[in-house]
């Protein structure tokens, strides 16, 4: 199969029910409608497994994006504050 956008060959991944094609050229990901539905079902599994959002807190003084974590608070000491053991993320690619 060829990429509809740049006509490079597509690689198909299909191991657990969801078929995803990624273009080897432009790296675009292409999904058909059935795949989209499967993706949505899987997504809701993650969301249901996630803990309920923390209670609303005061807005931080620094602006944050709409998708920011709900528990980020003043000076990082509200809610969870700093998560333990994440330091490796700050120091690696």
């Amino acid at each position, binding site marked *: 199969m060829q990429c509809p956008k740049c006509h490079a060959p597509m690689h198909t991944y299909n191991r657990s029910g969801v078929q995803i094609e990624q273009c080897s050229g432009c790296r*675009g990901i292409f999904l058909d409608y059935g795949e989209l539905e499967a993706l949505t079902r899987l997504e809701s599994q993650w969301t249901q497994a996630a803990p309920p959002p923390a209670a609303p807190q005061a807005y931080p003084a620094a602006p944050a994006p709409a998708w920011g974590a709900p528990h980020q608070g003043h000076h990082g000491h509200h809610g969870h504050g700093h998560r333990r053991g994440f330091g490796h993320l700050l120091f690696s690619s």
Partner: protein
Amino acid sequence: MTLWPYGRPVSPDRPEDAPWEAAGHLLARLHRLRPAGLPGPLPVMRGPAKAARAVARLLAAAPGTPAAAVILRAWAGLPAWARDEAPMPRTDIVCHGDMHLGQLVRYPAPDGPWLLIDVDDLGVGEPAWDLARPAAWYATGLVGEAEWSRFLAAYRAAGGPAVRPGGDPWPELDAPARALTVQSAATGVAKAAAAGRELDGAEEAMVDACARIARLGVPVVG
């Protein structure tokens, strides 16, 4: 790859001790270099290509998992340039290309000034990409508001061009910070799958952030 014998500047578990001011200041100075004044032409910064590679690695390692579905949805909502599918909006700024706190060392050790190292990925591109990792850490709650504000203030004070000089910087930061969140989540899930282990707390926080990005309602398109 160069070996840097100076050791890590701070403990990775104490981000409040990290040299946030030095990081912001050095990054701003790098971004203010004129590409034309450098000895040779620079390649295009590879940040978006690295993010795309992380997603490809995720697809190979953990397809069909709820985490991968969430990450893919967040990825699909990014602008094409952030997915390495279109040219970057600007290529007039010298970028580090792989900015994180491990790229700062004191030279000479242990009390010399901070240096920004490991410029293997140096290239011209969208400078907000270099701020996007700290921005993503702040947005996902891994780094507190105080640390983020120190970093951003130092960057702005040194005349960094990636964000507007005052006010809300997120119009510039949003797309790159989402991309870095996707990249971190994809890398974490792929690593966990390869090792046959559960996600750790930080990896889970990154996938949770992808779920919130996905819920912003951006359609999945080819």
